C-alpha cells in the first residue's frame, strides 16, 4: 500500500513535516553544542546535529552527500572529537566558566549575522528556480571523474598530508 502524499487528518505534506522536524532538531542541537557546560554532552549534541543535517540533505535530493555526512562526520570527525575530549579534559574538572568574557558581544554579533544573512537570502532575487531535483549517484560520479577530477586528486593528496601532519603533531615527541 503506497504512503499517501500528506499526513492523514492533518493534511500536511510529509516533506514539509520532515523539514520542520529536522530543521528544529538541527538548530536545537546546534544551540546545545555551543551552550552546554559539559563538553562531552556538547560532542553528543554535535552528533545529533550532524544526523539531522544528513536528513536535510536527503530532503534536498543529495543522498550520496547524506551518506558521506554520516560516514565522515558522525563516523570519523565526531569520534575524533570525542577522543580529543577524553585526551585533554581528563584531569581538569569541567571549567568554571564556559564562556569567554566577550560572550555577550559575541551573542549580539551572531544574532545580527543571522538576521543579515536571512534578510539577504529572502530579499535577493535568485532568478527562476526549478522544482527540487535529486542527484543520481551515477550522474555525480560522471561529473566527479570528468569536470572535477583535478580537485578530486588534490583532495586525496590533501587528506594524506593531513593524516601525516596530524600524526606528527599529536605524537609524543622523543626529544621532549
Amino acid at each position, binding site marked *: 500500500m503506497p504512503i499517501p502524499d500528506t499526513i492523514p487528518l492533518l493534511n500536511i*505534506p510529509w*516533506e514539509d513535516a520532515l*523539514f520542520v522536524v529536522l530543521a528544529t532538531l*538541527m*538548530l536545537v542541537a546546534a544551540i546545545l*553544542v*555551543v551552550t552546554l557546560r559539559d*563538553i562531552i554532552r*556538547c560532542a553528543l549534541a*554535535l552528533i545529533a546535529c550532524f544526523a539531522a*543535517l544528513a536528513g*536535510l*540533505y536527503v*530532503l*534536498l*535530493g*543529495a543522498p*550520496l*552527500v547524506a551518506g*558521506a*555526512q554520516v560516514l565522515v*562526520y558522525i563516523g570519523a*570527525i565526531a569520534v*575524533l*572529537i570525542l577522543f580529543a575530549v577524553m*585526551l585533554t579534559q581528563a584531569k*581538569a574538572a569541567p*571549567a568554571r566558566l564556559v*564562556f*569567554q568574557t566577550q*560572550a555577550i558581544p*559575541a551573542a549580539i*554579533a*551572531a544574532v545580527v*549575522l*543571522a538576521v543579515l*544573512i*536571512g534578510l539577504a*537570502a*529572502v530579499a535577493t532575487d*535568485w*532568478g527562476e*528556480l*526549478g522544482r*527540487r*531535483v535529486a*542527484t543520481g549517484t551515477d*550522474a*555525480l560520479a560522471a*561529473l*566527479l571523474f570528468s569536470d*572535477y577530477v583535478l580537485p578530486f586528486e588534490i*583532495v586525496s593528496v590533501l*587528506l594524506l598530508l*593531513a593524516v601525516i*601532519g*596530524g*600524526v*606528527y*603533531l599529536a605524537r609524543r615527541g622523543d626529544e621532549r
Partner: protein
Amino acid sequence: MTLQSLDAYLVLAGALFAVGSFGFLARRNAISMLMSIELMLNAVNLAILAFGAFVPGLAGHASAIALFVIAVAAAEATVGLGIVIAIYRNRRTPLVDEYDAMRE
C-alpha cells in the same frame, strides 16, 4: 503550496552559521571552538546543497562541491585536533585564554 523553498533552506543555513560563529567567539575550550567551526562548515554545505537542489543545472555540481567540503573538513579536523592535543601536552590546559605564551 509547499513550505520548502530556497529561502527557507538559506535562512536555516544562515542561522546555523550564526550559531557556529557565536560558539567560536564565545567558548573558552579549544575543542568547543573546533566543534563550532564544524557547525559553520556544515551550514555552508547546507547552503550549497540548497542551491544545487533549487537552481536548475547546478544539481550535480553542488553535490560534488559538498563532497569536497566534507573531505577538506575532515582534514581540518585532523590537523586542528592534533594541534590542540600538542598544545595540551605542553600547557596542560584546553582553555584558549590561558594560552598566553606569546603575550609576554
